[in-house]
């Protein structure tokens, strides 16, 4: 238990340290601020340029090419450690078209992990998101970003209950549409207004088997996901960008779209508060 807490604290310290160390580095020619070159990366079609880095509390990104960025989200690693197993995740994002006022991107990734239950049973999960996004620069101050993300979620669990061996698997697919208006109020402050909506979510399909006793059983269930059908969020926020440091901050209404986990929590879970937050450096 103490080892887990220690590991968690170590990871938080490491992330915070890396972030603030990045902020404190001697500035090179200004690469940050909201400029024509420096674009928002979240909820947009833009990606980091080659050899550029983003280090933050929520995600770590690196520009492999001018058009290809790799990202890992920190929260799954952190929460994975708390629940006794790390949650590897990776996302590739390609801005395959960026001409004049229009940029287009495609991204795909995965997130996987294991959660240990109190009864020593294990729940494994695997998520694969694919997203398409478009960004339009209307003028030097205003941009509009639109996108869609399909996420396939699979999970599995096994448990021993008395003489029964229980195994189960879960499948859910859902599509998210999002749009964000960005208004650069100054070279430091940008106002964002983000809409997210889940127009489609499949029923959760649960496959299970019960063995070890007589009779044995194979179970296939469909569980309604009514709480998440048409889930949405309206999130006004700001992105502050200095030479290196950036803060993204927003508080909105309704469902919570969890960054890094690609999931949606129904509004009633957080009393219809939908937060957005990140602190990061780019260099």
């Amino acid at each position, binding site marked *: 238990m103490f080892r887990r807490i220690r590991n968690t604290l170590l990871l938080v310290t490491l992330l915070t340290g890396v972030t603030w160390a990045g902020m404190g580095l001697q500035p090179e020619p200004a690469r940050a601020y909201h400029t024509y070159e420096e674009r928002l990366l979240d909820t947009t079609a833009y990606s980091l340029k080659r050899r550029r880095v983003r280090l933050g509390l929520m995600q770590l990104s690196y520009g492999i090419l001018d*058009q*290809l960025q790799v990202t890992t989200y920190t929260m799954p690693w952190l929460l994975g450690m708390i629940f006794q197993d790390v949650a590897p995740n990776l996302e590739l994002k*390609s801005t395959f078209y960026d001409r004049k006022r229009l940029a287009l991107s*495609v*991204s795909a990734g995965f997130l996987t992990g294991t959660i240990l239950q109190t009864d020593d049973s294990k729940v494994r999960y695997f998520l694969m998101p694919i997203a398409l996004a478009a960004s339009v620069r209307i003028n030097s101050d205003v941009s509009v970003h639109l996108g869609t993300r399909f996420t396939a979620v699979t999970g599995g669990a096994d448990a021993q209950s008395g003489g029964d061996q229980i195994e189960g698997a879960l*499948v859910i*697919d859902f599509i998210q549409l999002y749009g964000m208006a960005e208004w650069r109020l100054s070279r430091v402050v940008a106002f964002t207004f983000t809409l997210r909506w889940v127009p489609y979510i499949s029923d959760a399909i649960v496959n299970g088997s019960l063995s070890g006793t007589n009779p044995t059983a194979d179970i*296939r269930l469909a*569980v309604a996901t009514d709480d998440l059908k048409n889930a949405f969020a309206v999130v006004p926020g700001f992105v502050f960008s200095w030479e290196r440091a950036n803060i993204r901050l927003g508080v909105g209404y309704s469902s919570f779209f969890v960054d890094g986990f690609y999931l949606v929590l129904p509004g009633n879970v957080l009393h219809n508060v939908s937060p957005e937050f990140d602190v990061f450096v780019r260099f």
Partner: protein
Amino acid sequence: MKAFASFLAVLALAAPVSSCAPSFDTPPDLQPLIQAYENPTAVVTSEIMAKVADEIAKAAEEIQNSEIFEEILQVIIDVQQELDAATVKTCDGGAMNGSDCSVDADCPDGTCVSTGDIVVGGICDGGANEGDDCVADTDCPDGTCGGGVVIPTPTGEIRVNYICPGWDERQFDPEYEAEPDPANGTITLTMTLDSGGIGRVVWGTADNCLYLVPTGRENFQASYDGGVALDLGDPEPSGQDITKLIVTFLMEGDIGFDGGTYRINQSFRVTLENTAALVILVDLADPALSETFNYIFGETQAIRDATGVFGCSLEESRCFDESGTLFSW
């Protein structure tokens, strides 16, 4: 070119994404059969009875002797009990209205009813039942029920594979714990699940299922090898007593009983509460179910056809009403 390469790199990562669309087996449509019981179309005559009387008598004898329906219904009852134990229940009415409950006694002036939700993996923490399966805290006196996953009002299907008990006489010894032996054959049944209860249609096969039929004096060796579909009646709510239901069977296969084999391709109705009350559906014409009547066994025998209900006796080879013999064969 680099943009295209990066695009391909992303697509390569996305390639494994696949979607498992739900695909459930479709239950056999037994409604035409149910309608044939409710609305018999044949007008039974002495000529008809002369043709079918022996078949009716033989089918009834084999069905009642082999008690194959009991073997099959017992599997369904076991599944229903497991489902019932895993179903979340709350008090309806009374002082504890809306609270979790296990039995009616938990609900003064109210009743304990199923919500349709199912709990999987709940374990009692503390109390007298520590470590036992549970659905709610009421299952864990002086403890709490935790660790379970609630599946809200699931729909779907359950495929049950039951290894038959075989012909070992020791199975009736309460002290004897038999190891299931696949050599004794199996019964595989598919049931639909709706709102925490078993749906009305169950179907499957028996693969050379061996079992003993106990009587007061001796145990008879019996077997069944073939298909089965049955209708439990109205949608089966959680907790309803299956032994009291009138169940419609459709069976096609081989019944073995006491060394003999009988080929059955027959529908019948029976209730576990009174297995002597058997109704045979007699199908006279081709296409199937276009001309049918019911032959009813019980304290007395009767026929229900398009004209109504009247008495009959296969032993006396005659049918009759209050005024006397209608016809004989």
